[in-house]
Structure formats: structure tokens, C-alpha cells
């Protein structure tokens, strides 16, 4: 097992156990900054962990970041591992990260769909959904990004349990989704909610369930465009920016629509890079470049949130 944070290979894909074990080494290396918080268990009874970056205080304004809600999007999870390490190492070194963590907490969920992720390693690399049983169907799993209480069951989600975009029987029926909802609602002071997906090179804001513009559309668009400028500055990767509905398609029950509708203004979703040749199967040697450029975009958003309290 990867027992030493210094020997961990960030340029490789890892199993769930290895990632969970690495979280312990990160916490051990930065005990006054990072803690591993269990937010619940999955359908198959695996623990769900988030890394909490905090320099103190009680329920400070916070930023939520999740990766890997779609289990086959491995580069999302791998990038989150790299970014967790980066944020921990940059605290006290990079004035921007130091200032951010001096004022806000960051919650980072690296593997938001642990059952699905484990399944991609053992049985089906192309698995996207959760692993819950659907009564009356031979097909398992719900798309955890169609299961949130935001236009639930509307256009762009399937009622067919065999579909990869099956919305599930009820909003928040998936325990993995409910665990995040419960954490965010019980905390009550999240100011940003950022979901990291792969691939297609997009930075999106609400809505997906509707093609109408959100009240903060102009501001979110402007923040998104500056974030993408920062991201592109490293390797020239081109991103598109816009609302989910306008730049991809109408999709209901998505996480950032829910977060926006519960009052978290700065809600964004990244679709990380692909080279146009690999789709979900981005070679491991591109993990660090992907994570490095994404970090710049993410950091820009976090700085903006820090500097624009509401």
C-alpha cells in the first residue's frame, strides 16, 4: 500500500483502497490543516470520506468540491487527489491559498461514487452509475447526477433503470447523494459548490434542468470565463463556458442546479480535458497536466468566492 505521501505516484490511476489509504498519509503529513471526515456510507456499505481543509473556526464559510460522481471519469478523481496534495502543500507557501484557507474551509470529496469506482476497477471500466438495485429491473444503478432535487425527473433524465442517465425512483434516493445533501444542509454555510467531471473541456453553471438563465448568469459567466483563462494559461487547453442547458443539453436532477437553488450562488461544474483521442480513457501520463491546469481554474473561482462574500 501507498504508506508514504512522498512515494505516492500522482501520475497513475489508483484503486479505492489506495486512495483512501493515501488520504490518511495526507492527514498525517498536515494534521493541523487536513482531516478525513466520514460523511456516511454507500449502498454497498463502503465509507464515504471527504477531506476537510480548515485552519480553525466553527462552520466557517466553505467551498464544496466533488470529483468522481460518475465513476468511469477516472481523471476527475485522479486530478482531485493531485489537487488535494497541492492545496495542502501550498498552504503557508502560496499567499493565495494561505489567505483562502485563513478565511474559508474547503471540503473535497475525491471519490463521490465509491461503489461505482470500485466496480470500474473490478468488473466494468465503463460503469457510470451507482450500484443500487432497482426493484423490478435486472439493471442496477442510478445516475447520481440526475438524482438531485432540482427539476427531478424532467427532461434529460431517463425513467428507464437500464439507462445510463436513469434518475432513480425519488430525488436523493441514492445514499451517496443524500450524504452530500445532508452534509451541505447541516453545515449551512457553503458559498460555492463545484463538481468535477470528465471529459469535453467545459466549465458550466446552472441551469441544466431549464434553459432559462439564472439570476446571476452574467456574474457566473464572467467568473467562469476568467477561470478558464487562468486554466488555459498553462497549456492552451480550450474550454467552453456557459450554462449546462445551453452548452450541452437539457439535463435535470443535476448537483449544481440543486446547490444553486438552495442558495449557493457560486455553483460550477467542470468537464476536464480530453485530447480528442481518448474520451474517458485519458492516459495516466496526462493526469498531472490535467490536474495542474484545472487547479488554476479552480483556484481562480475559489479566490473570487473568498473576495465576494454574500
Amino acid at each position, binding site marked *: 500500500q501507498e504508506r508514504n505521501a512522498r512515494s505516492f*505516484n500522482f501520475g497513475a490511476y489508483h*484503486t479505492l483502497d489506495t486512495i483512501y489509504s493515501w488520504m490518511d498519509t495526507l492527514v498525517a503529513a498536515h494534521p493541523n490543516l487536513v482531516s478525513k471526515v466520514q460523511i456516511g456510507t454507500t449502498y454497498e456499505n463502503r465509507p464515504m470520506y471527504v477531506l476537510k481543509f480548515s485552519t480553525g473556526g466553527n462552520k466557517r464559510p466553505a467551498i464544496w468540491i466533488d470529483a468522481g460522481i460518475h465513476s468511469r471519469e477516472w481523471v476527475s478523481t485522479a486530478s482531485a487527489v493531485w489537487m488535494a496534495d497541492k492545496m495542502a502543500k501550498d498552504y503557508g507557501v502560496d499567499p493565495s491559498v494561505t489567505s483562502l484557507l485563513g478565511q474559508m474551509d474547503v471540503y473535497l470529496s475525491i471519490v463521490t461514487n465509491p461503489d461505482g469506482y470500485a466496480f470500474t476497477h473490478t468488473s*466494468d*471500466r*465503463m460503469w457510470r452509475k451507482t450500484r443500487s438495485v432497482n426493484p423490478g429491473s435486472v439493471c442496477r444503478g442510478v445516475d447520481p447526477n440526475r438524482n438531485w432535487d432540482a427539476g427531478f425527473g424532467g427532461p434529460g433524465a431517463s425513467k428507464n433503470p437500464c439507462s445510463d442517465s436513469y434518475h432513480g425512483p425519488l430525488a436523493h434516493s441514492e445514499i451517496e447523494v443524500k450524504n452530500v445533501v445532508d452534509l451541505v444542509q447541516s453545515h449551512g454555510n457553503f458559498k460555492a459548490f463545484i463538481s468535477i467531471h470528465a471529459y469535453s473541456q467545459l466549465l458550466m453553471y446552472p441551469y441544466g434542468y431549464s434553459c432559462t438563465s439564472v439570476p446571476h448568469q452574467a456574474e457566473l459567466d464572467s467568473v467562469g470565463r476568467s477561470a478558464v483563462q487562468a486554466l488555459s494559461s498553462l497549456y492552451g487547453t480550450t474550454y467552453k463556458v456557459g450554462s449546462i442547458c445551453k*452548452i450541452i443539453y437539457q439535463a435535470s436532477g443535476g448537483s449544481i442546479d440543486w446547490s444553486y437553488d438552495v442558495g449557493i450562488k457560486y455553483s460550477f461544474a467542470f468537464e476536464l480535458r480530453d485530447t480528442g*483521442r481518448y474520451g*474517458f*480513457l485519458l*492516459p495516466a501520463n496526462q493526469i498531472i497536466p490535467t490536474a495542474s491546469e484545472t487547479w488554476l481554474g479552480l483556484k481562480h473561482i475559489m479566490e473570487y468566492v473568498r473576495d465576494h462574500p454574500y
Partner: protein
Amino acid sequence: RKLFIGHQVLRINAESEEHIQLLKELEDDEGWELDFWTHPASTDLPVDVHVPFASLHAVKDFLQAHKIPFHVMINNLQELLDEEQEGLELSAM
């Protein structure tokens, strides 16, 4: 472990609304067991479809018949997965 020997991923560049509609019909056809990695929505974004070996000829014929441009993005999905697995095991060692 599910294998994907001979499966391909096609990148389709729809050029018109008619193409998008035809691709949506393809998406609704469950018989070919297609896995749309990106969905047909507009001509701005390419559509990537994972096609099982058994459906390859039929899907390519369909696209050619309707003059919808495409190219093979991944020639043999399993080869790429084998490389990925090898990297993972090497790293674990």
C-alpha cells in the same frame, strides 16, 4: 471482468439539425447497445459513441448512408484498457 475486444469509439461530427435528429434516433435504438459518451445535442460538440463489435458494421453503414461524418477515435477499446491496467499494476508494484 467485462471485456471490450474489438469495440470502437466513434467520434461523429454532426453538420446539421437533421444529423442531430438521426443521431438521436440511433441513441434511442437499444438493439445496438450503443453507449453514448457524449450525446447528440448541437453541431458545436462532437458525439462520441462506444460501439460494440457486433454493431460496428451496422452503425457505420447507418452513418455513411446518411452522410454523417465520423472517424474512429478508439480503434480497439480493450487494447487501451489493457495498457491502462498494466500502468495501474506497475504503479501499485
